[in-house]
């Protein structure tokens, strides 16, 4: 029998039992919807995070010293080991374009003369090129050694009158001491600039590590004291040490990045570096690009996704048992119809095809409804968390295929039973 004719007949009997067919597909709908919704969210999340890394960031290598194999993202288990001398030496290395420290300085408030706003998120101290040229909307990068700052729009706009380039601000540090900064630049948006900060939007003030971090560190003993144990004696000088460093490679090319990473590691672990005094088997230099750091986030995301897929698989299993069950009922109910069809010349394979088609239609309808529901769910979720929406289209195709496969598997036995029905018995069946 022509497949189109099977389709027509099968559709007829599905429509004959609307409610029953709808309820039967529910298991498939839920399973597919769960997978599609979470895969959409996952893809959107990934696009959201990766979209925040500008191409220029790709040449940055983020470094810290931590126990080998420690997991948990940027700065996990990091110890302050890098001195300013180390960074200058690294910057002079052939494969390295720039190297600077990174630190957050804890603050209480910022004032622009009369108005004071609370600022708990601190100052971000780093090198001038940390704020890339193309991210500066107004003004310029700050200079090392100068009492200058670059603000992002969220920080600039938190005052009643927006702060603009050239104004002076007073920052009150956590300890109570006050420092003056001159605003020399405003960035184009308020998203974070590196994985160290995180990429979410929030008010940020960027300052050079010298003088802000070096002053703070020597004043409070940050870096020196935290080095702990064996480090203390050699740190008697109290020179500021950085927890985190950023090394810029010549380009975003993988070979350049690897070269920069290699020569920086070699130097930092050599006796020439101050850092090497503190490095041992339990404390190694870790240098990673944004993409590599995001890979760890991706791992967590994948774990969650596998979990959801696992639950969905159970739902699909239950759904296919539901289809198989209703198909068996249907075969029994329609024993007489099967007898009629066989009496007028239906071959076993015609009957088999008819019932198989019916169960595949149920599976595919379930998959289509589930996909629709999942995409809507993913859309609402992405809206809610404010992510760019990315539809994983290959999963939509996959969902339809899964629906078909579920339909075939669930319909195989009932259809086989229908096909081998004896027409003599079937015609007598009441």
């Amino acid at each position: 029998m022509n497949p189109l004719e099977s389709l027509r007949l099968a559709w007829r009997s599905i429509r004959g039992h609307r409610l029953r067919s709808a309820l039967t597909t529910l298991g498939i709908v839920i399973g597919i919807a769960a997978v599609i919704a979470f895969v959409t969210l996952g893809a959107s999340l990934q696009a959201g995070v990766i979209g925040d890394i500008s191409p220029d960031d790709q040449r940055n290598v983020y470094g810290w010293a931590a126990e080998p194999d420690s997991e948990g993202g940027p700065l996990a288990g990091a110890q302050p080991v890098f001195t300013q001398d180390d960074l200058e030496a690294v910057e002079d290395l052939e494969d390295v374009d720039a190297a600077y420290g990174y630190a957050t300085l804890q603050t209480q408030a910022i004032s622009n003369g009369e108005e004071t706003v609370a600022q708990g998120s601190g100052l971000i101290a780093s090198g001038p090129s940390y704020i890339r040229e193309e991210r500066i909307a107004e003004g310029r990068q700050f200079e090392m050694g100068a009492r200058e700052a670059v603000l992002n729009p969220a920080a600039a706009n938190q005052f009643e009158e927006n702060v603009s380039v050239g104004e002076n601000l007073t920052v009150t540090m956590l300890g109570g001491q006050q420092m003056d900064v001159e605003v020399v630049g405003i960035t184009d948006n308020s998203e974070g600039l590196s994985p160290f900060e995180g990429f979410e939007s929030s008010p940020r003030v960027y300052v050079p590590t010298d003088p802000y971090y070096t002053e703070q560190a020597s004043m409070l003993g940050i870096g020196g004291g935290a080095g702990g144990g064996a480090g203390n004696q050699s740190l008697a000088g109290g020179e500021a040490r950085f927890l985190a460093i950023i090394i810029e490679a010549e380009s975003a090319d993988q070979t350049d990045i690897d070269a920069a990473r290699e020569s920086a590691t070699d130097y930092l672990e050599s006796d020439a570096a101050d850092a090497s005094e503190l490095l041992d088997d339990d404390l190694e230099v870790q240098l990673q690009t944004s993409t590599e750091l995001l890979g760890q986030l991706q791992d967590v995301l994948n774990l969650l996704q596998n979990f959801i897929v696992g639950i969905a698989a159970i739902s699909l299993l239950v759904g296919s048992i539901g289809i198989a069950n209703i198909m068996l009922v249907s075969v029994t109910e329609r024993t007489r119809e099967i007898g009629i069809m066989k009496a007028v010349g239906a071959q076993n394979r015609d009957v088999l095809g008819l019932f198989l088609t019916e169960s595949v239609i149920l599976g595919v309808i379930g998959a289509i409804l589930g996909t629709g529901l999942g995409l809507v769910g993913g859309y609402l979720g992405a809206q809610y968390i404010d992510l760019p929406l990315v539809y994983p289209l290959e999963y939509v195709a996959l969902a339809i295929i899964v629906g078909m496969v579920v339909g075939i598997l669930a319909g195989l036995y009932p259809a086989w039973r229908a096909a081998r029905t004896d027409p003599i018995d079937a015609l007598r069946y009441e």
Partner: protein
Amino acid sequence: MASSGTAVSLSNVRKTYRIGEPVHALDGVSLEVPRGSYTAIMGPSGSGKSTLMNLVGCLDTPTEGTVVVGGQDVRTLGDRERTRLRGTEVGFVFQTFNLMPRLNAVENVALPQLFQGVGRAERLERARNLLERVGLGDRTDHMPNELSGGQRQRVALARALVNDPAIVLADEPSGNLDTDTEADILDLFDEFHEGGTTMLVVTHERHVAERADRIVHLLDGKIERIEELDDAGESQAGSPAGRESGGGDE
């Protein structure tokens, strides 16, 4: 339609069911059904009427003997060929009509051709013509549950005729109909018979059987006697075991 030759022939057919003791549902039956003839089969319950129907209808195969339908020996055929033979050479009319409940009249009539791979348009066209011939030209799109018993049986007759079968098998075709409707249906049978269709009607009612050219009386799986009828339905004298019958006492 050709009125020469044989539509169905049974020779020495035995059908044995083994449910504990072997039971001979048919016990050595020989019968020729010429093309264009009208035969009635009568007999009490358990006489083997249904078994004979199933054999002639290619739904079953004999334990012994041969059943030839449309020139083919049913016993030598595999399941697939037997189904094909049934679809093309046999048309069924049942007591309970047996229409497909979710197909309308014209689709029901066209159903046998669906399984022969005839295209939809051609199928429906032929089915409409047949419905017209059975007097249901204005009911083609009605569902079975929107039709009366007599109308349903007309649809069933049209369906039985759709593949131009060698024989139309009717099993108590008027058993579920009132007297007037019964007469209408039987008149229709006569009409198609006159047009050359070979009819085989199984019934336990004398007045239904009398529409035929001859009545085959079955008893305990054997042909008891064959009664030849003239046009008026009167029994011709004699013929306890018909000319073409192998007799009931073998």
